[in-house]
């Protein structure tokens, strides 16, 4: 892909200077394509740098500022619905220019390429009863994770899980060696959740979580939803124009990160506090989910708050219903093992389908 100029964009990019980065790096005699690659995220808008624009609006304005040919550009996003959202945006705002857009399943590829294959844990521990029911790992204090922590405290579910809630200093019992590892680079109060680096193999204690539990309660990265309060105020209550409100309400998100892919890769059942219809999307890709273990109707609940609450209620139900022995037997039933094996194989083969772009 020597002819592609890939401009990597992350939440930490200096967005306001993006057009300068592009014009500086673009070599007309070399590059026939410019990829604006923001596949790490699935944002609706860019408010962390006080840019009052939707992500598509920002990309179009950036391209306009470069003065380069629109045909060169592809905007790559981490939202499954990228092309749908872009078509809706152009329609609502009556935008004539069109660039290519794409969803890139970065986190699927990244998990397959860079994470440790811990699936052997499933077989290794098949004759061992584990001390806890489920895992629940949480870094940044997003709304849905905060309510998860409150719910788990209130219902004494922490007793049944291996969990982290970094903002409450509730972390894994790290060894001295790992603790030092976690202190690099320097972590302060405001960024201590960054100690979790999803892009690489985790420290040994991390894997103990899976040795000790039977399923994962995943608090996925809910980009649009977790920023909902900010965006609701900016685009629904006081939209700059009615079109912004219309676009916000039409915008769809499915964002799957290493949190979910990791469960599949590790052969773990999961309850997903994620976007509307994520399980349906997974099924569309050929994966099987766990309606043989618990009710998965939560996936079809449109309202984010109601869906989150349904996930939490389900978690409690499952913990009430199963004992360690019965969940062990269920997870190691032929039916569930078949699902885990199927998903693992599909995860790997689909990952090979995904074009490698440099991480």
């Amino acid at each position, binding site marked *: 892909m020597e002819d592609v100029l890939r401009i990597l964009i992350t939440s930490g990019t200096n967005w306001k200077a993006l057009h300068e980065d592009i014009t500086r790096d673009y070599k007309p005699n070399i590059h026939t394509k410019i990829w604006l690659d923001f596949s790490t995220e699935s944002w609706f808008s860019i408010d962390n740098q006080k840019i009052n624009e939707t992500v598509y609006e920002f990309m179009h304005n950036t391209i306009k500022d470069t003065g380069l040919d629109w045909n060169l550009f592809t905007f790559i996003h981490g939202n499954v619905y990228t*092309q749908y959202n872009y*078509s809706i945006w152009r329609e609502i705002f009556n935008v004539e220019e069109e660039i290519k857009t*794409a*969803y890139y399943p970065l986190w699927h590829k990244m998990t397959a390429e860079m994470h440790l294959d811990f699936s052997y844990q499933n077989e290794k521990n098949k004759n061992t009863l584990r001390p806890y029911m489920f895992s629940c790992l949480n870094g940044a204090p997003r709304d849905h994770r905060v309510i998860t922590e409150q719910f788990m405290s209130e219902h004494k579910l922490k007793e049944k899980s291996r969990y982290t809630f970094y903002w409450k200093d509730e972390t894994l019992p790290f060894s001295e060696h790992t603790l030092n590892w976690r202190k690099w680079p320097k972590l302060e109060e405001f960024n201590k959740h960054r100690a979790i680096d999803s892009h690489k193999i985790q420290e040994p204690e991390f894997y103990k979580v899976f040795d000790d539990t039977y399923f994962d309660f995943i608090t996925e990265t809910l980009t649009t939803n977790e920023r909902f309060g900010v965006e609701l105020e900016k685009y629904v209550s006081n939209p700059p124009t009615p079109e912004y409100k219309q676009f916000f309400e039409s915008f769809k998100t499915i964002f799957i990160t290493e949190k979910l892919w990791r469960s599949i890769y590790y052969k773990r059942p999961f309850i997903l506090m994620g976007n509307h219809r994520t399980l349906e*999307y997974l099924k569309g890709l050929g994966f099987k989910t766990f309606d043989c273990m618990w009710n998965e109707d939560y996936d079809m609940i449109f309202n984010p708050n109601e869906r989150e609450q349904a996930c939490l209620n389900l978690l409690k139900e499952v913990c009430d219903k199963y004992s360690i022995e019965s969940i062990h037997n269920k997870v190691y039933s032929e039916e569930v093992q078949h699902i885990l094996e199927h998903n693992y194989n599909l995860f790997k083969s689909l990952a090979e*389908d995904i074009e490698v*772009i440099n991480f």
Partner: protein
Amino acid sequence: MNYNNEWNELNYKRFYRHKDQYNQKISIMDYVGAENTVYNDDITDGLKEDIRTHLKSFTLEERHKVNFIIQQGLESDPVIINDDWIFAILHKIAEEVDDLTHKQITFETGNWNINKVYNKWLTKNNISEQINVVGAFELIRIYSPKLWDYHNKDGVLVDLDYRTDFTPKIKPYVYTALNRAPHRHRMELFLKLKEFGILGKGMVSFNEVSTDALSRELTQEEINMLPITLDVDLEKSSPFEHIYGETMPQAFSYMEQKEYDTVPNEFLNFFENSYFSVVTETKIGIPSTDDIYCDENNCDGVVWPSEGKFKCIRCETQKQMPEWTEIYDEKFITEKTWRNLLNGHPMVWIGTRHTAKMLQHLGFKTFNSLWDESYDEVRNPLDRFYMATNIINELCQKTDEEWLELQEKALPILKHNQNKMLELEDILRITKEDTLHGEIKWKMS
């Protein structure tokens, strides 16, 4: 540009679909049956389930790209289901199928004025969401060489023979009027040609017979004159087998039985030996349904909307008509016209209103510089018929010299039309973009 509807380079490759698979064509005949009728059984459940199943075969993020084109095929008749236009069930399906929006559904019919009907239907029902409706000139394919994909018995792509020499000359007949199915307007034409005494001036066939014309029943004496067979030996084949088996095998599936590598031009004789064609189109703007016939004192005339009321065009009795007919408007151009455009033969149409105007809109030239075409503007089908037949009668009175002059004047028109037919790379369509509030935004040559 329409990049994003067919581009997915970076996603899971095994889910990539060819761009054609995003456009799912559904023949309405598969649901309502091959027999062409106005009233149809409720097909909502079957159609909805098939649409849902196809849509679900795409992953969630691809579903917005999928379009469903519900094709009425080669017909222009209203499709009435549960006493309402088909639009009602298509709207219902758009509302009830997950991940499907109205704009992903297209209803394609041979009625080129369908946007007007749809616009009225939306207004009448106070509906703002819109599906796409398209008037498609599907039958143009039969006489457009570049659109051909017909193969013979051996699987070889077959060519089409057409006339290229339009040199003016004196011809033995004035006109050609070939008729198979005995629609009322064709029987009316028989009566009129007989009344004018010009049956002998044309190469005329009425291969099948009905006892009813538009204005009246045929007398026994008139019935006894029929059929008039010119182009078909009824002892050897039926008129239907003749037209579709021999003269126009490309229209149905007869081509696969043929050995020739070029479809011979069975109409050449008529084009060479007459100055123009009287094209008795399939439709003249009257719905093909039994409830349009007057039942007053065994009248059996056609009931036609006039001054906001439905009146019999024979006895002028008012009649109550089904509600859907209030917005009925059917305009149809068939292979009978396209054949003449390819072969360079002038035409007078017994057809739906604005046939000539629509042809001009599509970029063809018609014959208003040769004779009066104002009949094309007349709304009432019987009045329009009378004006057109008066023109035919007038043309039959012209001398050979006058015809040589008219042929000379016709040459650029015929060549233009033929060239356009030869260059067509897709069938012609009238979409919403060609209309304003349902009315055609006419482009005139």
